[in-house]
């Protein structure tokens, strides 16, 4: 009984300060010395493993880049694997499915812009891994003029690489056409942006140390509060015989 009340005191300070990321156990006094080193060792080992190299969860991510009149979608897992043969679907804002296809061996799928609206692109890599990205209409507006050739492609997967569309039928007019220039520039800029988009997508997915510590702190704090409330209830009760510690 006295042990219980004693244990309530350190718990109160832990719950009040919002526990840090070190999960040290509070056990009945006799075990405190043995619990702490083990818990500390486990915590250090885990954090060490987490931060050795890039520790990213196995989740599928994607990004989409507009290049000329086409959208190139790339799916990948956070640990670097490509989302091979993933199913990609494109939806209009009202929910109608515009097209569907499969990613190639590099996790890449590209298709002509079906319409100049927000396009919701969904990628399903199997076994419950799915992700989504919406290309805003504003990004497509400039590209609409570049989709010169009337390829209303149904977007079935093929090579999927960034093959430029026949967007600027070269040299049909002697004069330099501003629209053509715009199309060419947009194509080039779109292609250069692909690696940038990929990096941004990866950056967004990285887990920061503060996320991890925050999560652990939340767990310890929540359970600490629970512990504290229970301890108060115990000490408020008339002393009785408590059964031995459960396993």
């Amino acid at each position: 009984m006295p042990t219980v009340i004693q244990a309530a005191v350190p718990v109160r300070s832990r719950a009040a300060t919002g526990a840090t990321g070190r999960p040290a156990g509070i056990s009945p006094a006799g075990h405190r010395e043995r619990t702490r080193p083990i818990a500390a060792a486990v915590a250090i080992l885990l954090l060490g493993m987490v931060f050795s190299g890039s520790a990213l969860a196995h989740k599928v991510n994607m990004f989409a880049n507009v290049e000329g009149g086409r959208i190139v979608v790339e799916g990948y897992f956070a640990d670097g694997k490509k989302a091979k043969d993933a199913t990609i679907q494109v939806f209009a804002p009202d929910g109608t499915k515009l097209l569907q296809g499969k990613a190639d061996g590099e996790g890449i799928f590209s298709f002509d812009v079906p319409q100049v609206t927000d396009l919701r692109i969904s990628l399903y890599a199997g076994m419950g891994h799915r992700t989504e990205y919406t290309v805003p209409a504003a990004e497509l507006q400039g590209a609409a003029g570049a989709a010169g050739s009337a390829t209303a492609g149904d977007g079935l997967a093929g090579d999927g690489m960034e093959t430029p569309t026949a967007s600027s039928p070269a040299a049909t007019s002697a004069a330099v056409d501003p629209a053509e220039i715009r199309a060419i520039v947009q194509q080039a800029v779109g292609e250069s942006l692909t690696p940038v988009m990929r990096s941004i997508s990866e950056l967004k997915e990285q887990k920061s140390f503060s996320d991890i510590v925050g999560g652990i702190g939340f767990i310890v704090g929540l359970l600490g509060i629970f512990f504290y409330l229970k301890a108060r209830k115990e000490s408020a009760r008339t002393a009785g015989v408590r059964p031995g510690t459960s396993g």
Partner: protein
Amino acid sequence: MHISEGILQGPVLAAGFAGAALIAAATMRKLDMEEIPKISVITSVFFVASLIKVPIGPTSVHLILNGLVAVVLGWRAFPAIMLGIILQAIIFGHGGVTVIGVNSVMLGGGALVAYMVWQQRHRFDFARREFIFGAMAGATATISSGLVLALALLTTGEAFGGVAIAVLAAHVPIMLIEGAVVGAAAEFLNRVKPEMLAGRNAPSA
């Protein structure tokens, strides 16, 4: 193994939450205060486990460790895993938020099955009992969770047989790793601090 947002349909998600709530209530009964620090530590381990990447040849897998939670917490593994899944979904976006119920039933339920396997050790007595049963618990947790995953995907229209085989085949390396990790952990704990393991009848010393 966490299911992402947007794959399962409404009724399945609702059933997941209902099932998770029921099992959580059942497994949290008479929660003893003394168990709470242990729950806190192991939940943190589970929470962080999905970030640990184990390279295997050309690819890598991430740990789940619901078998370890089962071996240390016993029935309390379910609420602990559920809390871990909630935080993984909210903080890491690992697993969808609407899928928290289904994911909890999947990983928490797998842990409970693993605990039942772990408890069978009392029928035997040989030298490396804890290692063997710990390894079996770890592997069982992965298999059972995989079966629940296949069941959940079945509701989306995928043929169960094909999906189940694909899921289990893809998780064989995870099964082996989880088995090894949980077996080693169980044996270590048994040697150093046996009362940390769940389901022992001996009073703590």
